[in-house]
């Protein structure tokens, strides 16, 4: 069994609410993290992301200027982002099903519904560090596999299906 030593990780926290940033920072320092950077909106967050190259991004959804969803889409640009694979944990008050799907389709790694607790935040960090999902790149999507429970064998099956289609219609 493994645990995460947060003192070895660098975090970027993006939230327009100063109190929320303070709470998340306090929890991260409690976990032993030394390097926590902050930004108060999506635009500043994107700049801080390029400057500090964090290991994990924790962002709010609802923010002025541009929000957590738009920020995630910018970070998940495989050809221009400094690290399109970075784990993104979205902290939000939205728990509705359609909102969860929207976040998933933008490329969010994990959702954390408020009110947050030390344990729930630690669990999300542990998940993205210890068991990261493979990333998928298609014409319309780049991000963590949107299916949470895919075994390695299923990627082989997916390959077999792709091969069959290619052999039937001819490879380019």
């Amino acid at each position, binding site marked *: 069994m493994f645990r995460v030593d947060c003192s070895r990780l660098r975090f970027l926290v993006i939230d327009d609410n100063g109190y929320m940033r303070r709470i998340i920072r306090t929890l991260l320092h409690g976990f032993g993290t030394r390097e926590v950077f902050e930004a108060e909106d999506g635009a500043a967050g994107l700049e801080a992301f390029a400057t500090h190259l964090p290991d994990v991004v924790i962002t709010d959804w609802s923010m002025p200027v541009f929000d957590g969803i738009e920020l995630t889409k910018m970070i998940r640009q495989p050809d221009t982002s400094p690290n399109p694979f970075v784990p993104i944990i979205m902290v939000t008050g939205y728990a509705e099903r359609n909102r969860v799907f929207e976040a998933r389709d933008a490329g969010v790694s994990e959702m954390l519904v408020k009110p947050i607790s030390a344990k729930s935040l630690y669990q999300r960090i542990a998940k993205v560090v210890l068991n990261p999902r*493979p990333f998928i790149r298609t014409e319309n999507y780049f991000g963590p596999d949107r299916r949470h429970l895919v075994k390695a064998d299923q990627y082989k099956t997916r390959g077999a299906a792709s091969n069959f289609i290619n052999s039937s219609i001819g490879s380019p």
Partner: protein
Amino acid sequence: MTRAPQANDYAGDGTVEQDFGDTRVFHLGGTLRAKAAVRSADAGGVDDLSVAAADAAMKDLSGDFQNWMGDEVNRLIAAFEVFSDSPPNKRDIGPLFRAAHDIRGQAAVFGYPIASEIAGSLSKLLDKIEPDYLPLQLIAHHVDSVKAIYRNNIRDYANPVATQIIHNLRRAIDRVVEARQKAMAEEMKFRRTI
């Protein structure tokens, strides 16, 4: 001719890329895991000591929570005043929604779960109804309720006044949403006939 999925070491960090033609799969190389994973006897991979330390840090911070909650409530009141004082065609719902949404998310951490629930109800109202049709009176009830909960320091669901406030607000919102949906359906029906 069959094309086998290609696997190669992407970016030289152990990340393996498989190419299936229209889809590529990247199996991450475990850079973060190598950087921060340590063996542990804790069941489920949760580091109890780290969580306990973070809980203790939050407890130290909690002395400020009542003042922070006061600031958030004042922000909500101010946002509502600006909203209600603006001409209907110039109302910006953003600051009011964000103030309510923040209380919804944080008030429970600050020790005011009932205020969180009322603010959640207000967020839903602001999210579901178009700005032109928002009932100001109902918004005012929500803002006043959050204010009353905070000023009377009501933190417990067992408080009968709080329970009654939540119940009444929920019923009122459901009625407004239902009436609006009915009006929209009638409007659609009317448009189809002309």
